[in-house]
Every structure is written in C-alpha cells, then in structure tokens.
C-alpha cells in the first residue's frame, strides 16, 4: 500500500479520533449519548481494522462484524436526533409515529430494491448487513431532507448540533447511496473511484461534525444601550401585555 493510499484509506481515523476528543471535552455524551457511542465505536472499529489489515481472513471477520453493528448504531443516532429536534412536537398525536414508520418504509424500500436489482449477495449474513446499511443510509437521507425542509419552513436552527449530526450523515449517505447504485450498474470497473469518493465524503462528514461540536456557544448577547426598564415601567408594560391577551 502506497503512502497516498494509506492516507486516503485511513485518513478519516485521526479525524474521527479528534472528534471523539472534542465530544469528551465538551461532555457531549450527556446530550447525544448515542452519537458519542457511535463515534467511540467508529474509532475502536477503525483502530481494530488498521491493526489487522495485514491478515486478510482476520480483517474480513473484524470488518463484517463491525459493519453489522453500524446500522444499529445509525438508527439509534437518528432516533436521538429525531427526539432532540422534535421534542416540541411531542404533544401532537401524529408526530411520534413518524420515526418508526420512516424506518419501516426505508427498510421495505431497501428489501424491494434488493429483489429488483440483485447484488449477487442474495444469501448469507453479508447480504443482510449490506441491506441494513443501505436501509440506514436511506433513513439518514430522509431525515436530512426532512430537517432541511423544517429549516426552510419552520426556521429550525441549522446551528444546533442535532442538525449538524444529521447534515454529516445526510451528505455521506447521499453519496454512499449514489455510489452503491452506480456500483450495481457499472460493476467493479469504478470500484476504486467509488471507494475513494465514499471515504472522502465521510471525512467531510466528520469535519462537519467537528465544526458543530467544537464551535463554542455564542458570546454574550448584545443588549440595548439604554438602561433596563425600571420596575414601575416593567409593571406598566406587563399590564399592557396582559390586556393584549384575549379573554
């Protein structure tokens, strides 16, 4: 493996390790425990793969075992994002079922596609792992598209970390779905290219997460230059506000 290849294939690992460090430092495991678990797992899996890269049979075992866990963690992280973003909507009866229904729809779509476009891996655990990964990618794209719609329609804060998590996954999942689809169409001819594109996109996703989790909260708000209202003035205004209210 040349140095360039080494950097391209394993370059994301240090980035992911930096992200883990930032998450620990900012104590983000309190707010996004599943995303923290995902990052910790990604670093552990990456290091394990790197250590056994010279032993093909061991590498294959480690690779597919870790790959099998990724979709489960992906769903958990998406649910965490969903709960974080939509906690204000929990009162509305039609909102909570949206996530499980979307998961089921994405998995159903993936299964249907696997039947209509055979991958050559119809049987065995590997086919299931790849199917589950594609299902989660679909879910991530759907969630990203939904959040972008919410930013446009409802002014959802794009600077919040939940959106950042989703944006990173959304970008990577979109490219991963495209490369997988093209892989089915063109076969192994562009295997290296698709692999590189996926790795570079994932690195960009990690950079997005790094930005969202390392940018400090906004500084002190700019207040009016005039002095604050006196207690009397405040009382008078609050009385006006009360009168504005409808009976």
């Amino acid at each position, binding site marked *: 493996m040349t140095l360039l290849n080494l950097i391209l294939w394993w370059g994301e690992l240090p980035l992911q390790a930096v992200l883990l460090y930032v998450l620990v430092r900012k104590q983000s495991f309190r707010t996004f425990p599943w995303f923290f678990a995902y990052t910790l797992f990604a670093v552990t899996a990456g290091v394990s793969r790197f250590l056994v890269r010279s032993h093909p049979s061991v590498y294959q075992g480690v690779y597919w075992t870790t790959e099998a866990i990724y979709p489960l963690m992906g769903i958990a992280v998406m649910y965490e994002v969903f709960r974080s973003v939509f906690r204000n909507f929990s009162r509305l009866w039609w909102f909570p079922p949206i996530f499980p229904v979307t998961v089921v729809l994405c998995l159903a779509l993936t299964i249907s596609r696997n039947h209509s476009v055979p991958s050559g891996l119809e049987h065995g655990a590997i086919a299931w792992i790849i199917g589950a990964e594609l299902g989660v990618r679909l879910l991530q794209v759907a969630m990203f598209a939904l959040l972008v719609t919410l930013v446009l329609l409802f002014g959802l804060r794009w600077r919040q970390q939940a959106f950042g998590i989703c944006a990173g996954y959304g970008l990577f999942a979109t490219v991963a779905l495209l490369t997988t689809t093209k892989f089915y169409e063109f076969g192994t001819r562009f295997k290296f290219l698709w692999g590189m594109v996926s790795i570079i996109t994932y690195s960009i996703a990690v950079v997005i997460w790094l930005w969202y989790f390392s940018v400090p909260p*906004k500084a002190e708000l700019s207040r009016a230059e005039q002095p604050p209202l006196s207690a009397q003035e405040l009382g008078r205004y609050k009385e006006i506000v009360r009168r504005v209210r409808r009976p």
Partner: protein
Amino acid sequence: MIVTIVWNLMITAGFISCVVIAAWIWFHFPDRTADDVVDFLLPVDLEKAETLLDANTETHLRCDLSRRDFRKLQRKRIHLYVAFVHRMAHNAAVLIDWANREAEGSDEQAAMLAHDLQQIAVEVRLYSLLTMIKLRLWLLIRLDSWQVLPAPSLYEVREVGGILGLESYDRLKTAASFLFLEMGRRNFDELLHNL
C-alpha cells in the same frame, strides 16, 4: 420500476437538500437581533380575522345574501384570510429567527423566554402553512363555485392540525412582547402595532 424511481428520488432529494441548505445558509438574514424585528413585521388585523372565522357572521351572510352572492363573497373572504395567514406565517418566521438567536445566548431568563417564543412561533407557522395549503386548494378547485356542494366555511380553518390559529397568534404576540421587554427595548408599542 416504482422502487427504482423512489430510490433515485431519494438520492436526488439528498443532493437537492445539500444544495438548498448551502444556499439557505449563504443567503439567510444574519443574526437577527431585537433591532431587526419591528421593521420586518407585517401587521395582522386580528379583529378582522376573528370576524372572518366567526360562525355567526358567516351564518348571517349565508341567510342574508343570495346563494350566488354568498359564494362570490365567500371567495373574497377566503382570499382575505389567505392574506392574513400569509402575514402570520411571515411574522412567525421573523420571530423564530430572532428567538433562535436569543435562545443561544448566555442570559438564562432571555433564553427561556426565547424558547417559549420559538415554541409558539413554530405552532403559528405550522397552522399558517397547513391553512394556506387548505385554502389555496379550495381556491384552486373553486370549491366555492360547486353548486352541488355547500360553499366552504371559513369557520373550519379556525383549528387546523390541532392548532387554534388566532389563539396561538395571540399567545405569540404576548411571548414576543415579553422577550422584547426582557431585552430592554422600549419601542414595545411599535412591536404590538406591527404584529
């Protein structure tokens, strides 16, 4: 065939989302402060809106006017309410933008009020968008002109998606006023006038 179309649509949606969000971040109004609120609001006459949604007023009109005249008037009333709802949606968007900024601040009291404002403004925005879809659909299929069906009643859009529109908007005004006061702004009357 359908599966492939949906699959490709999902990938397209992903790419469009990436482009749209990048464009939105680039062109979006930067850091809306309390100074950037009042001048951007569009006044909504809540009393007039209340009259439009009043069941009694509508019943009187239905009885007093000929069927043809009532349908014609009802179409105008729907247009007027669409205009009001459009302003409500715009104002809610401005207030969400402002509340988003204040909610990120270190002032706990202001952040709490901003959070309340966000919540109510999102509710108003949801109501406005759902109502606009419903009313524009009525206008599109000219539901008011169908002689076999009764003319649509504006009273039906008083509550949409489990949200009472005017009541929510009223709460929005109160929440915005409280945050405005908390930020030490004195042109409070202007805010109420423009909301």
